[in-house]
């Protein structure tokens, strides 16, 4: 075949083609420089975003202590066990070990072990000892992760106060919920590189952000007092076959709550298991649980009955509408407008002074002095004593009072209000108002949390609470303490006496609505020492069977509690 020469023009064309390639390659080199120098930072950041997986390290939740440092809410180390499909070498061994140690059926474990997934959780909340055994077996592909679980060492103790924290370390009720941001801390994280399925790359460098544990919280609750109170309350609940028994012990001088019991309580370690008392009702599971968790002392209002006479007396004394020596006559009833409102003693107390009227808890006396004060001034005192506002206690779900509007208050309403009917307040509102009455007029904020402690710096921050002075004068307060001491010493509150201590108090028996249902709340409000109250207690027995007079059944409970607590008072 004839060979044909490469022409000169072709060589020029070659130069053109070559030039085009030079141009093209230069363009690419330039583009590469742009991407890998000027946009490198931005692009690598974005790449890291998808290549990294965040694994959280749980922060330990802060502990909750009583006022003396006894742990009421703690953390327990638990573990979760999972398997990684691609790393398992001896699947039979793994299945056998896990089913044995975790008390699961072999089929169940087998299904999870053989599932092609990057990570399969076999069981969580595994006790640490069991998890350690599994870890020590050293089988490939079995992962044990440590975790915390909230643990309440005393189970039901102060359940309505503490509340509980859920599995995700989130406070759900009570103190746990109210102080969640203090207790929960900040989770740390481990950033690991993973492949597109999220499988961690072995030997890849990890970035670790350490968790910050939550603050410890110190409550005003005293473990011992809470125990005494719970025992006393349990006793009366059983004897009187009552629906509920609630007891609050508070320092009237500063609002620190020493104990709050509301039976039946529930086990904080098993908050989703209904206790017997709440099982029966024909509601759905959620309502039943809410009933069980509910703290009636702050979430429910009730007609206080005769204990509210303290408020009426305070107003009348402060307004100088009555003195202790003023005399009254009780025929067993009082006609108000067209109504005949009875005294609890139907045959009447006869002639009595105001002081005796209080000691007798005589309704006509209080109707009379209530009328003397008048509706407008009465409501002014309600305001002064904090009955129109929530107490500000550091628990979630507090209810407010239900009161008459001023223009709706006629003589009948004023009369019934005077002895604690036709209005509704929460037990804690009553406690707060009475505190102001007997502590020389300072309106305190009932509270639990005293201080928080930073786990790292050990720095302690005390909580401060609002206090408003001047609700009533010192003289009135003095008079009130005196007359309430007389109630216990010689009046209806006799059963509240404690040998060797000066106790003041007031009984109450309120009929629950609707009237004539035969359901009562028997209560007793007591304080000691009467001359300078250090402790104020309220016992509420809800729907007792048999005798239902507060002075008969509630006062002895308070006396029993005081008997145990008063000698101990110096330790508080």
């Amino acid at each position, binding site marked *: 075949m004839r060979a*044909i*020469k490469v*022409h000169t023009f*072709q060589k020029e064309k070659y130069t053109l*083609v070559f030039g085009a390639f030079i141009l093209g390659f230069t363009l690419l080199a330039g583009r*590469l420089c742009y991407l890998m120098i000027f946009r*490198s930072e*931005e692009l690598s950041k974005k790449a890291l975003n998808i*290549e990294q997986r965040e694994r959280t390290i749980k922060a330990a939740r802060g502990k909750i202590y009583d006022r003396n440092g006894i742990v009421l809410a703690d953390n327990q180390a638990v573990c979760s066990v999972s398997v990684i499909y691609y790393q398992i070498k001896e699947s039979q061994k793994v299945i056998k070990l896990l089913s044995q140690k975790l008390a699961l059926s072999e089929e169940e474990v087998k299904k999870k072990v053989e599932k092609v997934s990057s990570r399969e959780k076999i069981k969580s909340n595994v006790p640490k000892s069991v998890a350690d055994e599994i870890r020590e077996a050293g089988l490939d592909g079995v992962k044990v992760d440590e975790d915390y679980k909230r643990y309440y060492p005393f189970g039901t103790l102060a359940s309505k106060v503490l509340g509980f924290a859920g599995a995700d370390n989130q406070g759900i009720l009570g103190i746990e919920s109210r102080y969640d941001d203090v207790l929960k801390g900040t989770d740390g994280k481990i950033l690991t590189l993973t*492949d597109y399925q999220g499988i961690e790359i072995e030997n890849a460098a990890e970035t670790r952000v350490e968790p910050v544990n939550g603050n410890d919280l110190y409550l005003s609750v005293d473990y011992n007092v809470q125990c005494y109170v719970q025992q006393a309350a349990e006793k009366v609940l059983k004897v009187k076959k009552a629906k509920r028994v609630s007891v609050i012990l508070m320092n009237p001088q500063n609002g620190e709550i020493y104990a709050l019991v509301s039976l039946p309580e529930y086990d904080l370690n098993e908050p989703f298991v209904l206790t017997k008392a709440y099982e029966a009702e024909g509601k759905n599971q959620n309502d039943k649980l809410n009933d069980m968790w509910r703290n009636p002392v702050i979430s429910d209002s009730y007609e206080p009955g005769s204990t509210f006479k303290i408020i009426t007396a305070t107003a009348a004394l402060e307004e100088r509408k009555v003195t202790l020596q003023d005399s009254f006559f009780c025929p067993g009833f009082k006609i108000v407008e067209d109504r005949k409102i009875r005294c609890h003693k139907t045959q009447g107390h006869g002639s009595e002074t105001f002081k005796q009227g209080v000691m007798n808890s005589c309704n006509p006396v209080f109707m009379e002095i209530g009328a003397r004060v008048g509706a407008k001034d009465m409501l002014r005192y309600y305001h002064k004593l904090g009955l129109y506002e929530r107490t500000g206690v550091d628990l979630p779900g507090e209810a407010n009072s239900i009161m008459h509007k001023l223009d709706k208050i006629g003589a009948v309403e004023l009369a019934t209000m005077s002895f604690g009917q036709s209005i509704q307040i929460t037990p804690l509102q009553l406690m707060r108002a009475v505190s102001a009455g007997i502590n020389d007029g300072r309106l305190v904020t009932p509270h639990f949390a005293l201080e928080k402690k930073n786990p790292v710096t050990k720095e302690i921050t005390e909580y401060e609470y609002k206090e408003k002075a001047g609700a009533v004068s010192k003289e009135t307060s003095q008079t009130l303490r005196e007359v309430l001491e007389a109630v216990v010493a010689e009046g209806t509150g006799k059963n509240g006496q404690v040998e060797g201590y000066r106790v003041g108090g007031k009984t109450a028996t309120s009929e629950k609505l609707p009237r004539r249902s035969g359901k009562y709340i028997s209560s007793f409000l007591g304080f000691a020492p009467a001359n300078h109250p250090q402790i104020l207690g309220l016992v509420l027995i809800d729907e007792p069977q048999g005798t239902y007079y507060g002075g008969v059944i509630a006062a002895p409970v308070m006396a029993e509690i005081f008997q145990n607590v008063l000698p101990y008072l110096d330790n508080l």
Partner: protein
Amino acid sequence: MNAVQKKSWKKPKRRPQAMDYSILFLVLFLVGFGLVILYSTSSYKASLLYNDTTYWVKKQALFAAMGICGMLFIATRDYHIWQKKWWFAWVIYGGVIGLLLLTFAIGAASHGSQRWISIGPFSLQPSELAKIGIILFLAAYISSKSREMRQWKKMVIPFLFAIPIIVIVGIENLSTCIILLAISFIMIFVATPLLVPFVVIGLIGVAGAGGLLLTQGYRMERITVWLDPAASEKGHQTIQGLYAIGSGGLFGKGLGQSMQKLGFLPEANNDMIFSVICEELGLFGALCVLALFFALIWRFMVIAVNAPDLYGSMIVVGVIAHIGIQVFINIAVATNTIPNTGIPLPFISYGGSSLVFMLLEMGLVLSVSRYINVKK
């Protein structure tokens, strides 16, 4: 002896010299480098899917070995055997079209898109064969009709011959169709002294392509993805590729340290392998790879210019066009310089047919290199 050789192109039947070892070295280096990178990109996925980190590398190494043997065999033959008889070119032409149609027929029979023909344990991708076929055919045709190539009407004839192959390939595989078109275009371009018609054809081509893109929504989509890959789902591959390139920085994360290859970047073994090179070896490594290809093309240019005859020269130009365009498009796609189209990076991307035929083309060039006019 030099004096004899200087004029020896007039006498084709002379003793050949040694082949161009710089090309041989570059090619072997690229193949070896390709295997290393492929091992890096594929080992993780291979261990997940086949529990064998070397699953793909072993296959590719086998093809490389076959290809290198074939390359050396062809390199040591006289390249004129491919045009010894006038009908050889037509056998090649017919063979390529036949194989392409056969692929279609098999594909139609199995009710699916088909790019492969299975021969025993191997599967052949006829579109790769089409590239070497079109180079050999056009080289033979143009060198035998070199005078006619001066008239632009006659010049169009070889292009018309190429069109059936281009179209048949283009139905299934747009990317390869573009490569074939570019090879034909460049080979005819250098074979004629004419320049104006090419400028005209170029302009018509650009206008036509533009019109086609604007009228067909699904092609337009590629453009919108290209302009803003982050805005569209379809931009996933491009975005992941850019992440890989960008996270390489100046010197890269180190060989084997790519994160994007762990399943984030689609086609990491094939069309997007250059992104992994960037991530692992950085700008430095990427420019080195670019320089290697450039050196190869430069050596080819030297051989094309000094080829003993037009036939040999045209073969080399065809191979230059093939490699150059493929490298350019591959890297341009990886860096999102042009809209996405899937083209493997020569010698490096995973793919048996592509590697084997590329090496055979190298064999042709090496064969030509043995006959070049060596100037003192």
